[in-house]
């Protein structure tokens, strides 16, 4: 992940913007230096040197005025031309094809679903070197989807389906985050886009087999706790039956939890110790999170974390 993502584009969608940004930057710097330079020069050159009467009273000069107006018009004209050219390149037409991934923003995590029904959260896997069309909507308030290295950003609005092309020219991990103020945990609504050469968007489908757990192990016990203490009211693990009806609208899908790098919108890295911390002090780790701090015993927390770490 890059220190200056805007200046380190990794896609044919973001690259024209970077070039445009550099051009604009130099033009702007030129204007600024011109103004600051003239100001310093005039303040020094024409500084008051004792009482010598009033300087010549000059009221204006239409030619000069027309001069700098034309200068400004020319600059604006150049920028406008470049703007129009790059706008199309960095925001190609999204009408027509079916989206490759459905993105739903929630307070405060990202859910990604393929048309086949495979679902992940917080981490989007895409094939490298191919444009991927996203369909984005929100389950609650307005969020904003931003992965500066891969594409422009776009707002994610409830009741509206915005579309966005993203592309990673080469394999790698790219940082993304929510850019629109969306409540107490706006700061922790990060995600990652992982591009790999395997040419598919596939994750586990709705009917992929449940992880095999050794009977009697901590993980197996954890799976039982998961079902019984209402975890499964809000979280789905595909292939795992649930006693609670849920529509998947509340908590992130945990099917491949163990293979994720970050959890809870990026507050914590995904380690067993952190999972336990999360289960024990949910509201302290991410105050305002839509997940309550559940009354669990240490034993249950231990088993649950073993179970979650088994969900490869």
């Amino acid at each position, binding site marked *: 992940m890059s220190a200056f993502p805007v200046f380190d584009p990794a896609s044919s969608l973001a690259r024209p913007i970077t070039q445009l940004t550099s051009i604009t930057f130099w033009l702007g710097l030129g204007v600024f230096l011109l103004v600051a330079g003239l100001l310093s020069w005039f303040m020094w050159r024409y500084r008051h040197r004792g009482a010598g009467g009033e300087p*010549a009273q000059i009221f204006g000069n239409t030619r000069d005025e027309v001069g700098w107006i034309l200068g400004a018009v020319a600059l604006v004209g150049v920028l406008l031309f470049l703007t129009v050219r790059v706008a199309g390149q960095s925001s190609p037409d999204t009408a027509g094809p079916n989206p490759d991934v459905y993105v739903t923003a929630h307070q405060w995590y990202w859910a990604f679903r393929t048309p086949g029904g495979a679902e992940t959260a917080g981490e989007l896997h895409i094939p490298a070197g191919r444009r991927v069309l996203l369909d984005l909507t929100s389950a609650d308030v307005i969020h904003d989807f931003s992965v500066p290295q891969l594409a422009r950003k776009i707002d994610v609005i409830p009741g509206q389906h915005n579309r966005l092309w993203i592309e990673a020219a080469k394999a790698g991990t790219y940082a993304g985050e929510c850019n629109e103020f969306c409540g107490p945990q706006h700061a922790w609504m990060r995600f990652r886009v992982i591009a790999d050469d395997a040419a598919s968007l596939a994750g586990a489908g709705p009917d992929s087999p449940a992880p095999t757990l050794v009977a009697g192990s901590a993980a197996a016990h954890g799976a039982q706790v998961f079902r019984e203490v209402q975890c499964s009211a809000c979280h789905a693990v595909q292939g795992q039956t649930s006693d609670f009806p849920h529509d998947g609208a509340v908590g992130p899908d945990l099917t491949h939890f163990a293979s994720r790098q970050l959890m809870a919108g990026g507050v914590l890295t995904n380690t067993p110790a952190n999972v336990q911390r999360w289960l024990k002090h949910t509201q302290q780790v991410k105050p305002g999170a839509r997940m309550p701090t559940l009354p669990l015993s240490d034993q249950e927390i231990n088993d649950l974390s073993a179970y979650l770490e088994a969900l490869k």
Partner: protein
Amino acid sequence: MNQRVPAVSAAPAAAPALSWWRLFTSTDHKSIGLTYMGVAAVFLVLGGLEALVMRLQLAVPNNHLLVGEAYNRFLTMHGTTMIFFVLLPLLLGFTNYLLPLQIGARDMAFPRLNAFSLWLLVGGGLLLYLSPFTGSPSQGWFSYAPLSETAFTPQRGVDLWSVALIVSGYGTTLTAVNILVTGARLRAQGMLYRRLPMFAWMAWVNGFIILFALPCLTAVLMMLEVDRLLGAGLFTRGDPVLWQHYFWLFGHPEIYLLILPAWGIISEIIPVFSRKPIFGYEFVAWSSVAIAFLSFAVYAHHMFAVGLGWPVDLAFGTTSMLIAIPTGIKVFNWLATMWKGSVRYTLPMLYAAAFIVQFTFGGVSGVTFAVVPIDWQLTDTYYVVAHFHYVLFGGSLFAVLAGLHYYYPKFTGRFLDERLGRWGFWLNVIGFNGVFLVQHLLGLMGMPRRVYTYPALSGWEALNLFSTVSGFVLGVGLLVLLVNLWRSRTHGAVAGPDPWNGWTLEWLSSSPPRRENFVALPPLHSRRPLWDLKHPDDMDHVRPPRHDRQGRPIRDEEREHR
């Protein structure tokens, strides 16, 4: 030369005794103007402390001082306070104080309405600071729906917050009416529109912006309350983006509403301290009118990420870029005013110079947002935070500070202390640029705005810490300024009616001006009545025509007698 110089005494007027009763009941535009500024000072302290607490939280990554909701409360109060209860009252204060003086009037057109507007604004400010007692608003000063709806922000404080803005908004709208009528009807004999002092011009044009922009805010806040209190669902079952259209249709003109009178102040100061008339009066004046119109035509540049489609984005990007042209006209005219002048390094002039540098910087970074694809990358990052603080703080507020140093002798009869003033100036300049310059980099690094914390990434920590430390330097600078403002009231050097050798009518009245402003007005034949008085053999309107570099006569229009 027969000049009618009215008798004005140079003796220091006794420091006016602070009579609270008079303060509360006065309908005099000068008292009201100063009260506006006093109110703004109180809110500046509040909003400034809120900013410092936020900066403390952001000083180091993963800090625990103000987590989540708590930070958002400060964010909401800081933004609301600074925009509505610091900058706005400061500029209304200047307008109230100066407009009648500059056009040779005794008072505003509707003095009682004027007092009413002031107290509506103060009432609004009180309501805002009562709102925490009913559950602090935490939805942000921009209050985007649907986050501001009851489902996501149930606190009652949001309702009080809206009412605070509605109430103070009415006050400001009424002030706009007052400004427009005053400027149109109360100009002294001979004070033609094209002879108005630059500040009066811009303050008057500003009246139109206020009159058309603020009702959009009032309307959308009422819609929000219809949703929150009556459950109408305009922004939930209806269109959440509707909020943004209304809000920015108010919000963008609002920025110009906060900067236009500030430009007016600068356009008064630079000529006087360069000893030359403003270069290109007509261009500076008409560019304000152009900006007033354009300011309504650019609002959707706050919404480029919404997904309105790029043809719409480009249309608004174009109008936004166009605004750079009249703005550029102003900047170059200020520079041209200094050209071949005799520049005196007074505190007002120093602040004006800092204004030009910082405002130009903010203006240039503003143009980058009009380049639509750049906005698609940088909007809602710290680059925006840096940009608008450069415009509003480095621009508008610095211009107001320039104006405070310039007009303080008029307000009080005494100068601000020079030594304290210079300390304040350098602390403010260094502090301000320290806080916000590095935030451009943070934005380019991808740091989103309105976040209460951030992960420990390379570069982010050092820059954030630097920004916070500078924030405290700035805090000290503003404190020095406030101390100076308070102390010099009784301890400053005596100034007399016309300490800077000015040209506009306000310098004709005593300092502080008497109740009815003027004893008698001189004949008004030009834009600089006091120049004419002081230079009877070189009066603006009878001077033999000068020639420009090309040998053509200039200022022909100045010569016609009225």
